[in-house]
């Protein structure tokens, strides 16, 4: 029974990582950028939820505003910081992303101080236990898993079945050819950022409901781990991000359950390093032959 409840615990954590990892993977697939600021968008989402619920808004409305806020800030970042560097060397783009991440963290720190704040998790998902065949689950666990799986299915349908999804796949396959076929690259990239950060917004709410605190640097570790998940599954691959997310979630819960909670971060990175050395493209990633 303990094993089963730990599994569900891992499923909850893994689904949050998977949601965030999807944002990394989509952006990487389309412009080959490791969006370091993605984790900080999640942190911004946490603060938006904090403010809106603090202002007495209905929780559902607050969650909506959180997601919208994440989308807006991400699209803005892409327009202002990443678009001018579209043709620049990749290292410049990467450094810019680190810069944006620093900027967001420190702006929030400037306005809200570096202290952790209590997150109104029970206002969003009431603290209630659900009995399931002798297993006691909290409502937030169930909601997290259901919402994440729903979002992932939605994303899958969007990418595989719609015109926009087709355009996104085309751009990630070959940007130049996609442009020649009349696809508006900038629009597709903006929409990719928007979808990725909408998922981040959902992830932000679910993550904060699990841990009930928000602070300016919460995004960096969450972002790093989700990013590790994306790389583990094969960056640029949507199913890979999901698999990687669950793998990292389970690994973390397992290490904690075995009594080595101080080592979780090291284990997560060690797993990443081993996978990268054995299969550099990740579990489900496709290798691309280098042309001379």
């Amino acid at each position, binding site marked *: 029974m303990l094993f089963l409840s730990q599994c569900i615990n891992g499923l909850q954590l893994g689904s949050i990582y998977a949601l965030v990892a999807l944002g990394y993977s989509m952006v990487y697939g389309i412009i080959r950028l490791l969006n370091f600021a993605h984790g900080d968008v999640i942190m911004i989402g946490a603060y938006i939820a904090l403010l809106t619920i603090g202002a007495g808004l209905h929780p559902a409305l607050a969650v909506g505003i959180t997601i919208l806020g994440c989308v807006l800030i991400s699209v803005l970042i892409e327009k202002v910081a990443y678009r001018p560097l579209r043709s620049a060397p990749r290292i*410049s783009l990467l*450094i810019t992303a*680190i810069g944006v991440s620093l900027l967001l963290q*420190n702006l929030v720190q400037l306005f809200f101080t570096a202290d952790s704040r209590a997150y109104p998790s029970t206002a969003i998902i009431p603290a209630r236990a659900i009995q399931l065949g002798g297993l006691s689950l909290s409502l937030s666990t169930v909601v997290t898993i259901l919402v994440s799986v729903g979002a992932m299915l939605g994303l899958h349908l969007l990418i595989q079945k719609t015109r926009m999804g087709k355009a996104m796949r085309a751009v990630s396959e070959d940007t130049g050819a996609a442009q020649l076929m009349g696809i508006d690259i900038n629009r597709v990239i903006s929409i990719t950022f928007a979808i990725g950060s909408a998922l981040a917004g959902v992830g932000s709410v679910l993550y904060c409901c699990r841990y009930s605190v928000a602070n300016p640097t919460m995004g960096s570790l969450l972002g790093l781990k989700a*990013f*590790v998940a994306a*790389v583990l599954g094969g960056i640029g691959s949507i199913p890979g991000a999901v698999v990687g997310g669950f793998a990292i979630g389970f690994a973390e819960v397992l290490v904690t359950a075995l009594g080595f909670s101080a080592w979780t971060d090291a284990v997560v990175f060690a797993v990443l*390093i081993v996978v990268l050395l054995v299969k550099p493209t990740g579990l489900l990633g496709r290798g691309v032959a*280098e042309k001379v």
Partner: protein
Amino acid sequence: MNGYKQIPVYLRYLINTLLLGAFLLGGNALLASGAVNRAQSAVILQIGIYILLAVSLNVATGYLGQLPLGHAGFMAVGGYGAALLWKAMPRSAGAIVLGLLLGGLVAAVFGVVIGVPALRLKGDYLAIITLGFGEIIRVLIINLPGITGGTPGLMNIPKHSSFLVVYTTVILSCALIHTLMKSRHGRAILAIRENEIAAESSGVNTTFYKVLAFTVSAFFAGVAGALYAGYTGILTPGNFTFMTSVNILVMVVLGGLGSMAGSVIAATILTALPLALQSFNKYRMVIYALLLIAVMIFKPSGLLGRYDFSLTRILEKLINGQLFARAKKAGEDRA
């Protein structure tokens, strides 16, 4: 180059050695005379340490063209290595030199261990894997309190980092890196940056030179870590977070990827500025971040680009009366 007078090589070395010697002795006398207060001399020492950190990161970032994000990890192992040795040895000149070398060597060993697997990967993956290693080193330090003192830190490290120790080390290290980069090995490293496939086709052993540059970078980061340990007298894992690595990266990028003079200038300004303006400290990181983004968008090569300062080159121009002459553009010679 008809009639262009050149300074003989031995004279160039003599001029540079004399000037640097004068800088060392002058600086030491200034600090000993009490003309600068404690806070100011602390800033001066910190500047030296950050110069070495930036210059060493520049080897891997600017010259080799990779983006390691775990520089603080190398600094940490070097610092802890030297600190443990210094705590066990009585104060002597030999102990100081041995500690600095040990710090560098420990970091270099980590550099090889990390570099061999990491350098099989490219660009982004290398950045992530080094970041991961940096974090692992930090978790190791926290979880091995028997050796490292754990989270509260390693205390009572003898304060060996005087002005002379710091700046002699910095100057020697910079000179070594400079001569390495001017040698054929340095050229091979630069060739890899320009085009790895072309370099490999021309017979450059790319794996060897990538690991070499990475290890050299780690070695000097370790030396800088040792200086840091001897400066603060206490090492905590909190000193070596991802933010420390980013701080050093900001200096390198701002100064110019591949310019040693740029790294030195940027490290000096970015270390001195926030310490000089305490009230400005609150906004420091915001301004760093904005600077980083702005430099990348408007001048991706950094402030100095790949330009490197050479005193003797300026002297040569001076004796030829061409100090303000326009630099010749490529192809102009033929006209």
